[in-house]
């Protein structure tokens, strides 16, 4: 352990980020369903009500539309709300304020009313929570101009991205994959740098693997396995889905000439599609093989373990596809 590092979990990292924000700026407050008395549905905000009181840690009624809209209004009024939506499936109830208001207001008002709101939500499958609690819609939200979409995969990013988001004048949505909360690790840095920059989490010469969120760990695991066969994956953690960091992506492709995308969202028109299209547009003549995508199967996520496993991207599939990509067109 180095001097500046702490053993912690992803959950605690998010909590520390919230605490720091609350301590550092009186205008910051957290609101959402069960963030207070219950301690947060994923226990992220446990203890914060006792520490900060009910004005800063606001339990909301079950009214996603109104409390997201109120978060936007509060931001306009000068507060710095952190709005928590339990899971991304429930955020559909609040899409009107998110798209029709938060994402449009600054532009529509000719720059007069930027909306500095931060909206956090859990996302992703893998816990057998079935078709109304498991989807990964962060890539879908990335379609919307006016929003910034962050997808912290590491403990460091869970810890530091929030502070950055709160300083932005624009609406920032932060998606926390629910399988990451228990993840243990060491908090190493004192900042996330620029969250809009993708990071090379593993270097490799053969294939650029683009991913984010919980899939990062599957990608890294696959990279270890396939390295034994002499194939080296360069694993990029996108960190932000809007805007996309094309520079880092294209630099990597210039080295590897092959691209594999791993995305827990559905395939059609997901972020995987956009990444593929950008590569087409910016690096077509660099490519030695067509871009491949491994996404969640296009199905509402089923409960049964074997079906859910089959639906989600898995390490074995990443290994298999990566191998094909190199052998076929190497």
């Amino acid at each position, binding site marked *: 352990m180095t001097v500046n590092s702490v053993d912690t979990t992803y959950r605690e990292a998010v909590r520390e980020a919230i605490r720091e924000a609350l301590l550092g700026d009186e205008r910051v407050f957290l609101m959402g369903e069960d963030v207070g008395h*219950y301690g947060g*549905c994923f226990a992220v905000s446990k203890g914060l009500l006792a520490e900060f009181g009910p004005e800063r840690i606001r339990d909301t009624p079950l009214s996603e539309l109104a409390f997201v809209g109120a978060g936007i209004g509060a931001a306009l009024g000068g507060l710095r709300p952190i709005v928590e939506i339990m899971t991304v499936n429930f955020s559909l109830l609040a899409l009107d304020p998110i798209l029709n208001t938060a994402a449009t207001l600054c532009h529509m008002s000719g720059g007069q009313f930027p909306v500095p709101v931060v909206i956090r939500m859990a996302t992703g499958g893998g816990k057998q929570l079935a078709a*109304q609690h498991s989807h990964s819609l962060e890539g879908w939200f990335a379609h919307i101009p006016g929003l910034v979409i962050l997808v912290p995969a590491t403990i460091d990013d869970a810890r530091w991205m929030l502070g950055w988001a709160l300083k932005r004048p624009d609406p920032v949505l932060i998606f926390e994959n629910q399988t990451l909360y228990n993840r243990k690790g060491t908090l190493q840095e004192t900042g996330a740098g620029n969250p809009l920059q993708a990071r090379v989490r593993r270097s490799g010469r053969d294939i650029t693997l683009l991913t984010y969120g919980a899939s990062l760990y599957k990608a890294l695991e696959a990279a270890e396995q396939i390295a034994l066969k002499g194939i080296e994956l360069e694993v990029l953690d996108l960190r932000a889905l809007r805007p996309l960091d094309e520079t880092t992506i294209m630099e990597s492709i210039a080295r590897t000439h092959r691209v594999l995308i791993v995305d827990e969202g559905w395939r059609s028109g997901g972020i995987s599609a956009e990444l593929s299209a950008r590569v087409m547009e910016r690096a077509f003549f660099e490519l030695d093989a067509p871009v491949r995508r491994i996404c969640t199967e296009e199905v509402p996520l089923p409960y049964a373990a074997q079906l859910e496993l089959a639906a989600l991207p898995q390490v074995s599939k990443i290994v298999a596809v990566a191998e094909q990509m190199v052998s076929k067109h190497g």
Partner: protein
Amino acid sequence: MSTDSSASQSPLPPAEISRDLLRQMLRVRRFEEECVPQYQAGKIRGFLHLYVGEEAVAVGVISQLQLKDAVVGTYREHGHALVRGVSARAIMAEMFGKQEGCARGRGGSMHLFDAATRFYGGNAIVGGGLPLAVGLALAEKELQRGGVAVCFFGEGAVAEGAFHESLNLASLWKLPVLFVCENNHYAMGTPERIELAGQGVCAKAEVHGVRARSVDGMDVAAVWQAAGAALAEARSGQPVLLECNTYRFRAHSMFDAELYRERSEVQAWERRDPVACFLARLESAGVVKKSEWEVWQQEVNAEIAAAVAYADAGTEEPAADLLRFVYAEEEAR
């Protein structure tokens, strides 16, 4: 919220019905209790919401339904499915993720479905069932089939816009729908007083022209009585809301440290256990004998044990079938 009630003065339903109400509550109670070890053993996964303490609501209401009626539940709906006639084994197999389950293992605890008994789920979006029920009721009315759509939901759902929009619509269109609010006074860890401002759930229905009545949800006889009357009104095209005051004895789900309520409050409500109290009443009224009750317990235990065995023996749907039913396999009629 008070645990007091004068409701044990509710008239007893006829003996055969009273016996059945008790027996059904016992089935639900035992089914729910059995879920705990199955969850701990890792057989049941995902979210699991138990109905222990609230049995009188599902049993009292659903016992009044006709076969042609449609039922819409929540994620806390094992009891509703069971009383409605979905077999314990099909429910348990569903929760074990087996294709013998009532949704082929695709739904799990929160998404039980059964076309045969018109059980439309199993909905894990709070308030999500309300507009569905309105639409089902519209179909009953337009197709003149005489059925009612019954929709269960918690008091937490009353804060959702879906509640108000749905009640307004049902009232405007005079639809045969019975809204059953299972008011257990908490939405996860959020007590009613910080969830709902102003007047109570009944007033919130009446303002939309939906008749509403509050009933002691710990007393199955009272619920049964009130549901019967409410269903008659609903069947005639007057939407009705029934608020059943009840309490959940267990945690919200298996992930809940219960930081938000005192043990003493839970204990006060436990003294009004709907199963134990109704048993005592029927015993003292001579409607049920101790010996019968013991037989029932054995029978129900056997039913649940058989359900577990069936679920255990069930098979996994092959992963190759994953994409089935994303779209319907048969043409519409």
